[in-house]
């Protein structure tokens, strides 16, 4: 079985930098940052750690129902979803993730669009 991107890019020891960078990018974004205005740091970090690990094939599973429930009532629109996708692509590129691997991650997140965006 092929190694996951999570393993390929160094496991948690490497992914934690991606998580922090993505966390900062999301908070700094005026488009999606306000969604986290009242979210405390522990919850947001927890969410981002699981989210990045999940997309890279790390040791976390997100059943569709859980993913949908986590984003229900947030009224996430298509432009918000696109924005997060762009931020993620940029963050991964900053950490020298190969373009082909970034495409894989972005395709994966795209496949969950209907569960996340309203």
């Amino acid at each position, binding site marked *: 079985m092929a190694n996951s991107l999570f393993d390929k890019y160094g496991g948690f020891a490497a992914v*934690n930098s991606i*998580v*922090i960078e993505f966390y900062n990018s999301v*908070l700094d974004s005026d488009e999606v940052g306000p969604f986290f205005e009242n979210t*405390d*740091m522990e919850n947001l*970090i927890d969410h981002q*750690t699981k989210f990045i690990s999940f997309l890279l094939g790390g*040791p*976390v599973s997100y059943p569709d129902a859980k993913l949908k429930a986590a984003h229900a009532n947030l009224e996430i629109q298509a432009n918000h979803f696109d924005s997060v996708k762009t931020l993620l692509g940029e963050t991964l590129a900053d950490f020298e993730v190969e373009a082909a691997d970034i495409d894989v991650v972005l395709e994966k997140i795209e496949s969950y669009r209907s569960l996340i965006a309203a």
Partner: protein
Amino acid sequence: MAIASINEQLLRAVGVGIALFDGNTGNLQFCNDVFGEWFDDAGPGVAITALFPELDLNDVKTNITTGGRHSAELSFRRNRRTLVLAQIISRATVGDESVYVMECQNITRIRELESMLASYSKMVERNTREIQKEKDQVEELLLNILPRGAYDEYKSFGAITPKRYEDASVLVLDFVGFSKMAEQLAPANLVSELNELYTAFDQIGEQLGCERIKTNGDTYFCIAGLEDSDLDHRGAIIKTASLYRQYLQKRNASSEVDWVCRIGLGSGAVIGSVVGVKKYVFDVFGPAVSDAVAANAAAGDFEVIATDAFAAEGNTASQFAPSKPGMQVLIAD
């Protein structure tokens, strides 16, 4: 350059946030640039408690009076982020004046990393639990088709070598008139009945050290003495056979379906091995199995029959007249 000016420049140059405030009024007198970057409103005259609402000045005074310093960790929101500062407040005296010095280290990144580590640890722990659960299920399934010893060998070496057991006892049970029952009962009903019977046999056998090897339609095979060389396997297999009979007779008294068994026993050497490459079946062969099959074929309704050799080895005196050549009826109505 005046000493006061040098001191101020030093306070401005250090990498930690510094604020000086009046111990009595709690009003800021000075803050350096690092501190000022955290609070837009920070400046002379501003109450320190306006910046840190959780800060209790009475606590600060008490701690400084008793221990010389006050330590705390306080958080606040800025630009959608939670910033966490580790603070140490001490007292400095300038001439006749006493001023409180607050040093603040930004430990936000440390707390973020700790949160991330906690989140990741939980993920890994959950994952490990799920893997362990799956492993346990696989082990349970394999132990249904393999004796414990064979399973342990498979787990350690990835293969099971055929093994000769010098002395073990085998029980073969089948049901009289099964073919006819198979025609009369609905398939689901028949399977449900067999499932119940075989489960009961498994439980009875397990208590006495007998292990089911396989079933083949209405034929049930079990063996004693494979795993435990100290077991009186002949005694155990006779006891098991006796309990199978009793169980069936009791069940028949209250069940719509009557099951009549015949039981054959044999003992001696057997070879145990896994047969098959992908679809594993653990099976046993040898004289003990052949004897038990032959005894089973010779048995009448609810009879437990063993070969002469079995009876002689086990010193099992039959109270029934020998009616079949080479066989001893051990239990009958």
